[in-house]
């Protein structure tokens, strides 16, 4: 049971060859690039969607922050598509691996913070102290703010990993419960199946929302620092 439960999270190999690179590169095929003035439905839909997301996310940034727009849009498309593809049966989701999420979160966060320190040093340092704190509390508050700053990349990575992994595990467990209950009492199995369906709807939502949250937080860090 233990082996079965976590079997879907091991790094996939095909006959001893690690195909994880192919799995990460796969969602790229699903986003064709526009070739003509009037494209087919998939490309038009993708264009419309990306424009919607872009407008919603990048209006709050100034000129310097908008240079990050390509990075952020690629990020949200990648995380969203990988999460959604991971819901298919017997598939592997790269975003369940903490290593990959750390690899996404730490460079982006570090880039935002270092940009802030390079160009607006005083303002970035001023973020360590919220306005209107009473004077005796200042040393402790600076320490707390520093810790909170350094926890940001960890939180980003762990949040994404934990949400997706927990969702997959829950689906597996409730599916197992339904399986066992079919032979014991069928109505209970029906109820459990309905719970499973609801959970699936939640999973679809979570897949998209997590992508959004990740990208939004990175853009927030960017906004503070440009």
């Amino acid at each position, binding site marked *: 049971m233990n082996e079965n439960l976590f079997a*879907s999270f091991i790094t996939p190999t095909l006959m001893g060859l690690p195909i994880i690179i192919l799995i990460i590169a796969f969602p790229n095929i699903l986003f064709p690039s526009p070739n003509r003035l*009037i494209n087919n439905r998939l490309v*038009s*839909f993708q264009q419309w969607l990306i424009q919607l997301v872009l407008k919603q996310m990048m209006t709050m940034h100034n000129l310097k922050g908008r240079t990050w727009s390509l990075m952020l849009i690629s990020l949200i498309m990648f995380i969203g598509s990988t999460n959604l593809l991971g819901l298919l*049966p017997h598939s592997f989701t790269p975003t369940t691996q903490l290593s990959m999420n750390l690899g996404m979160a730490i460079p982006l966060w570090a880039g935002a913070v270092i940009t802030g320190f390079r160009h607006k040093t005083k303002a970035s340092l001023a973020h360590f102290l919220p306005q209107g704190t009473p004077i005796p509390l200042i040393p402790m508050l600076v320490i707390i703010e520093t810790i909170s700053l350094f926890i940001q990349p960890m939180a980003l990575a762990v949040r994404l990993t934990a949400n997706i992994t927990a969702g997959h595990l829950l689906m597996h*467990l*409730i599916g197992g419960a339904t399986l066992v209950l079919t032979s014991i009492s069928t109505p209970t199995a029906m109820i459990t199946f309905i719970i*499973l*369906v609801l959970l*699936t709807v939640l999973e679809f939502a979570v897949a998209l929302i997590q992508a959004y949250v990740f990208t939004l937080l990175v853009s927030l860090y960017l906004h503070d620092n440009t």
Partner: protein
Amino acid sequence: MLSRVVLSAAATAGPYMLGTGLILYFLSKEIYVITPETFSTISIVGLLVYVIKKYGASIGEFIDNLNEQKIAQLEEVKQASIKQIQDAIELEKAQQALVQKRHYLFDVQRNNIAMALEVTYRERLHKVYKEVKNRLDYHISVQNMMHRKEQEHMINWVEKHVVQSISAQQEKETIAKCIADLQLLAKKAQAQPVM
């Protein structure tokens, strides 16, 4: 006939029979094992099929609308450009037609100027006439005056000499005769109203 019906029914049901047979074979021989993942598969695939069947067509139409809007915008620009050029062509043609009729304008202007010249000429002629008449009238009135003066002078001279020539004797006789005439006339005048 009956065999044809049976055969056609069997033909349409062929693929479904194959599918059902395969699935039951895999399940019964445990080539495909029912795991917890089976139930997740059922729920995910079921959900996907439901959503696509329900909203697929409307999303397709929405995307077609997007493309239509793009084309319509470009088409509008093209039509506006064509219309603009057509308007320019018509304007040019109208201008050319006007140029053909310009000689009327020139004729009218020419006639106007000719009339103005005529009027000026006649005015000046009239002025000349008046001036000449003025001069001649002056000479005439001078002549008339001289004539009148001469006459008056002659009359005065004659009267003076006549008065001078009347002696005192002649004067008394003339006055007595006048009184006798007057008395006669007075008698006649008294007589008449009685009648």
